[in-house]
Every structure is written in C-alpha cells, then in structure tokens.
C-alpha cells in the first residue's frame, strides 16, 4: 500500500530534482554582483540551445556546448517532469470530465520510464565514447538528451486533445521522434567533432526517443 502511494508520487520526482538543483544556483546568484552576469550568460546560452533544438535544419556551431559547464541535467529534469506531470494529472481525471472517452486510461509505469531513460543515457554515452576521438561526459550526454526532449512535449499535448491511435497519430509520432533525434545528433556531432557520423548517432537516439514515446504516450 505504501508502495502504491509512492508510485503515485513518482512523476513528481523530476520536478523536485530540477527545482532543488536550480535552487542551488539561485542561492549562489544572490550572493554577489558578478554572479548576475553569470545568470545572464546562462539564460542566453539556454535560449540559443533551445533555438537550435527547435530548428533542426540549421547547422549548430560546436562551441555552444562548451560555453557553460554542461553538468546540469537541470533542464532535462524540468522538461521531463513537466511532461509526465501533464500526462499524469490528465490521466487521473475521471473519464467524461474534460477527458473524452477515447483517451486511454492506461497505467503508465513510471518506474519503467526512469529505468529505460537511465539505461538509454548510459548506452548513448558508451557509444559516443567509442565512436568519437574525444569522449563525452555523462552529464553532457544527459543534458543534451534532455534538451532534445522538448519536441516530445508537443506530442504529449497532442495526445491529450486527440487520440493518437490512428494513422495521423503514428505519422506525428514518427515526425516528432525524427525531429528530436536529428537535433540531438546535430549537437553531438558538432560538439565532439565527428564528421560523417551524424546519421549514425541519430539512429540510436531515434530508438531511444521512439521507445520513450511508446511508453509515455501510447
């Protein structure tokens, strides 16, 4: 019974983590004037990186990954938490109240989602270390993967408004997964200096995001 209650609160974990992690930053920013410049720099870089994700056809320069310490899966936690929270609260509404009858009231196993995303991050990190001449740290990989999770939010919001079981849903899911994986591979190939390997990196990212979409949305 306790585990069931814990299970209900599992989707809140990323929001809590993201909030705690960013709170550490806020506490530092308040102590000193030179840190306000740091804050602006961080915001500008985050804005630039978001734009790079949202425009997958534009080539990215390799330096944007090096400007900040890519240690924070902060944005990853916040994005993930927002998506899952959205779907979780919608899922818990009774059918008929703002929720049309075709919405699948299935149980989303959040434990599987976390385990699979951790395993996927680890796998992509291993693959990147093997394929590139300069390795990538785990925080860097997790941060980039979390960043490119942004288009998945669009998919889950569409899942709320209209059923995704038909052809349109499948095509939309495929397009979004392709978008996510293309931007992730663009980040990785520009930052790690791997030429001619962007599609090779995009394929395992597409597998990961496809599995993610399958587990959370379908």
């Amino acid at each position, binding site marked *: 019974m306790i585990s069931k209650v814990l299970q209900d609160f599992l989707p809140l974990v990323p929001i809590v*983590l993201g909030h*705690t*992690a960013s709170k*550490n930053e806020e506490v530092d920013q308040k102590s000193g004037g*030179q840190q306000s410049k740091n804050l602006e720099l961080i915001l500008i870089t985050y804005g630039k990186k978001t734009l790079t994700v949202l425009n997958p056809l534009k080539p990215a320069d390799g330096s944007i990954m090096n400007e900040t310490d890519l*240690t924070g899966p*902060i944005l990853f936690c916040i994005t993930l938490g927002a998506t899952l929270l959205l779907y979780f609260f919608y899922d818990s509404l009774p059918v008929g109240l703002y929720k049309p009858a075709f919405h699948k009231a299935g149980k989303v196993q959040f434990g599987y989602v976390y385990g699979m995303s951790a395993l996927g991050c680890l796998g992509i990190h291993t693959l990147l270390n*093997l394929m590139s001449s300069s390795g990538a740290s*785990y925080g860097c990989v997790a941060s980039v993967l979390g960043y490119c999770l942004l288009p998945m939010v669009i998919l889950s919001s569409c899942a709320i408004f209209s059923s995704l079981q038909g052809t349109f849903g499948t095509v939309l899911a495929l397009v979004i997964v392709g978008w996510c994986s293309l931007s992730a591979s663009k980040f990785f190939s520009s930052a790690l200096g791997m030429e001619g390997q962007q599609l090779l990196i995009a394929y395992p990212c597409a597998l990961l995001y496809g599995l993610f979409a399958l587990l959370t949305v379908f």
Partner: protein
Amino acid sequence: MAYHSGYGAHGSKHRARAAPDPPPLFDDTSGAYSSQPGGYPAPGADVAFSVNHLLGDPVASVAMAYGSSIASHGKDMVHKELHRFVSMNKLKYFFAVDTAYVAKKLGLLVFPYTHQNWEVQPSRDVPVPPRQDLNAPDLYIPTMAFITYVLLAGMALGIQKRFSPEVLGLCASTALVWVVMEVLALLLGAYLATVRSDLSIFHLLAYSGYKYVGMILSVLTGLLFGSDGYYVALAWTSSSLMYFIVRSLRTAALGPDNMGGPAPRQRLQLYLTLGAAAFQPLIIYWLTFHLVR
C-alpha cells in the same frame, strides 16, 4: 537519496566555480573539471558543496559524503576491471565508421553477389579502420541490429497482444546467449583448425552479429506481408548471408599466404567456414519464427 544528492551536486558546479567561499570538505577538483569538459566529473568534491546547503545535520552529511566517495571508488574499480578484459583502443577500431560505410555494408549484406574484391586491405602495423575499407568488419552494425531486433520483437509481440516486459527481457537474453554460444563455437573451431590468429574475438562477434540484419528484415516483411512474405525474406536473407560469410571468412581465415599450409588443414578450414555459414539460417529461423505467427 543518492539520486537526489547526485543531481544536486551537478547543479552546484556553477557555484563552485563562481564563489569558492564554503570551506571544502574535500579537495576542490571542480576547477580541473571545468577546464576539461570531456573529462569525468568528480562526484566526491561536488557532493561536499551541495551537502552544506541541503542538510544541516553533520552526521548525515558525513555519511552521504562517505557513501558518495565509496560510489566513486567503486566506479573506478569497475573501470579498471573492465579495462583489463576489454581494450578500449581495440574496441574503438571497430566503431570508427561513417554513414557511407554503413550504407554500403548494409547493401552488401542484402545483395553480396556482385561484389568483386573481398580482400581486407593489408596493413603494416595498424589495421585499416572500417571507414576506409569496405571489407573490414565493424561492431556498430551488429550492435544496432541487435538492439533493433529486441525492440522489434517487443513490438511484434505487442501487436499480437502477447507483450509484457518480462517477455522482452527473455527475448533479449535468449538472443544474447545464442550469440555467445556461436562465438565460442567459432573460437573452438578456429583453435582446432589452427586458423591464422588475426581473427580476434571481436572479429567473430562482428561476423556473427551480421545475421541480426537479416533477422530484422525477415521479421519486418513478415509483419507487413504475412507468413509468406516472412518465408521469402528468410530464404533470401539466409542465402545472401551465407554467401557473405563464406566469402569474407575465407579471405580472412586463409590470409594472404594461403598457398602454404597442408591440404587437409585447408579443407578443415573450408568445412569450418561452411559449417558456420550453414548454421546461420537455423539460428535466424529459431529466433524469429515465434514472432511471425
């Protein structure tokens, strides 16, 4: 709890760089980290910083710091043990591929009949990476094909309403066990027939992993076109895979000095190669027929 401290530690790196005011419990290695963005983070130092802010209780903070130092020590030990068995440089050779190589190799796996030159480029000291030599084996395709096969199996079972995560794990471990057994059998055969020792375990792993591409194609056609499509695809991919393996392993096993060597040994090597090739369709059928019912 450990999850929490790990993520809090990452966020505190900004502060660690900007204001080194709090007295450090451990050495401040975060400066070293920021100068090499490709290096591994130092979790021990960072947890020390975050713990000061998150927990007022000193005993719990010391316990957490100790636990995280144990974790980093464990991670180092795992890395050391892993490096004893698997040489990263040798493994990196197999992943030095690019998109053109992968596309051509996949085409070769499906239709190898028109390829003329099967010789691996001779090298003086460092083997030519797969980027420059189409005939060199790689491990990227087999790994990706294995993972795709496991996911496809899950999807096929889901379509047939027979899906559960345990079945997926069962599929994955069965396929893995078959790969390991086949590699061991090939190693034993190569040892008995005293084949040229250029064929390391990774080479054999690569060649036995190429059949997963055929498996994926068979399952996909089976899902799209029904049972007949599955058998047609199975026959086609099996024959092309057998041809591919026989041609590749013959040149790799016999080597450039295949004129020397006694005739019965050469025949033994030929039988070994043919046996390995004939084994492939059986495995493909065994691992896929329950998915296309």
